[in-house]
């Protein structure tokens, strides 16, 4: 079977399984882990869109999640807006800011873009920490949940459905003409430009979509844990997302998904010994970037001896 279709099938089985698998068989604890994993699946996959597919290493991704979370949170706490409306609005706010940042960075090469997004992320975190009238600063903003009666199962299905929709969106995008243009820009921006691709437009679109998804994921996360803190838009979170994409495999579709599940689940085991998972993931990510820059997906590909057949990046 063509490699691409095989990977899609595997993913479909995994997610289908997750959908049908009776959540009540899992303990509340592991349900939580699954929900958080799905959050990271959305974050890592959308970051991969700009970093893996268009070559823009942004450090503002966690910040966009934070914007979505805080926007929705503030709307619900201070204006009584239902999170079901607040979350999409938060996502839109993130998208707009993503558009702005993307536009700001168009004339910038890789390093400058990364530094700008880093600066943006830190500015946001500082503002959030200081404007505690709105955000309750480091204590965190307590926000209402999405369901009248708290039920992890409900959240599980919600996150699952949204994650699947997001992944379908990303998949269709990557396999569209736009996705092809993304990859051309990644390969060789000058040649792409001389071939008629509006690289500026491409990069901005990628940024906007990716930050919209981050905002959505952030909003969902916020109203799930019901406490939004400056930890969400932090560089620590940014690192985790980056590590997931890098370890799983940037520039492949399934890589970030696998990375997200793997790292989140593993971190639960590592937590038994202490808060070492960040260091551990850092070392793994370092090794991978040094020796196998295309991540675990590429390593797996080599073992099965399959030759890359092009349109896929899966």
């Amino acid at each position, binding site marked *: 079977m063509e490699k691409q279709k095989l990977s899609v099938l595997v993913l479909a089985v995994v997610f289908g399984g997750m959908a049908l698998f009776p959540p009540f068989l899992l303990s509340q604890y592991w349900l939580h882990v699954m929900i958080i994993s799905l959050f990271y699946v959305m974050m890592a996959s959308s970051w991969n869109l700009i970093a893996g597919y268009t070559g823009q290493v942004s450090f503002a991704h966690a910040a966009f999640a934070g914007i979505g979370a805080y926007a929705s949170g503030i709307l619900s706490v201070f204006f009584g807006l239902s999170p079901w409306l607040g979350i999409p609005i938060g996502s839109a706010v993130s998208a707009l800011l993503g558009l702005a940042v993307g536009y700001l960075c168009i004339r910038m090469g890789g390093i400058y873009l990364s530094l700008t997004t880093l600066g943006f992320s830190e500015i946001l975190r500082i503002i959030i920490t200081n404007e505690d009238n709105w955000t309750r600063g480091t204590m965190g903003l307590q926000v209402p949940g999405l369901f009248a009666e708290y039920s992890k199962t409900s959240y599980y299905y919600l996150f699952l459905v949204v994650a699947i929709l997001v992944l379908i969106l990303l998949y269709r995008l990557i396999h569209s003409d736009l996705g*092809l243009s993304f990859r051309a820009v990644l390969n060789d921006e000058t040649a792409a430009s001389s071939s*008629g691709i509006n690289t500026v437009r491409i990069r901005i679109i990628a940024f906007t979509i990716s930050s919209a998804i981050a905002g959505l994921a952030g909003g969902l996360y916020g109203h799930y844990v019901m406490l939004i803190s400056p930890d969400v838009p932090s560089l620590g979170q940014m690192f985790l997302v980056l590590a997931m994409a890098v370890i799983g495999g940037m520039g492949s579709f399934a890589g970030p998904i696998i990375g997200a599940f793997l790292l989140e689940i593993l971190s639960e085991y590592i937590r038994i010994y202490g808060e070492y998972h960040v260091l551990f993931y850092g070392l793994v990510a370092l090794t991978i970037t040094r020796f196998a820059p295309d991540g675990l997906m590429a390593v797996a590909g080599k073992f099965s001896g399959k030759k890359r*057949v*092009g*349109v896929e990046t899966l």
Partner: protein
Amino acid sequence: MSHNNNPHFENSPILLKGEKVSKLFGGLVAVKEVDFHILQGEIVGLIGPNGAGKTTLFNLIGGLFHPSTGAIRFEGADITALKPVQICHKGIARTYQIVRPFLKMNCLENVLIGIIGRPQREKSKKKEEEEASEFLRFVGLGGKERVMSADLTLIDKKRLEMARALACGPRLLLLDEVMAGLNPTEINQALELVEIIRGQFKITLFWIEHVMGAIMKASNRIIVLDQGQKIMEGSPERVVADPRVIEAYLGENHAYGKGN
């Protein structure tokens, strides 16, 4: 295959025109007040010793950077300050001295980019893929749709770049040293391809080359640059015999005028 039979170009419109184009990099003068013009339907060769400013001129036309002074016009419109993507949409495509296909994409995808990049697209995805396949077949890469461009031989990479450039639907094609690194058989194949491009696609060609035999055979007219300035222009026979050109090339190991 001599094209110096001079199909008359006097009545052809000017397709590309450069007026006193200069480019300075810091203190270095790369191109100095070069006037040039290309008539529709011509094949014009651009030659000169290394460092003469030929690729710089192409980069200026292609919008990769802009002239310090002077203007460039295409089909009457001023394209001096346009960006590469706009220049492509105007109808100018190019290949590169050091070939650069999209390495992590397969041949079909490479050509598709040219098609996707067109300002107007009406066809369905299927038709576009068929068209891309056609271009691949045309340059001799038929059947290699799914091969990663990184896995191609040098001449095939050049073919691919050619196909991608053609897919943009240009009226002017800038070729930068396509023959470099090719053996005599491949050179002849490339020459045939070039002629078909001119005849079948009705594309005008502006062409940098060091392989003298090839460019002399194929071109209607030659422009010679040396140290950023145009020192001569005319038919291949006159250029080859011109003392200024000979002088510029002294010290360069070229067996020009003798084929290769």
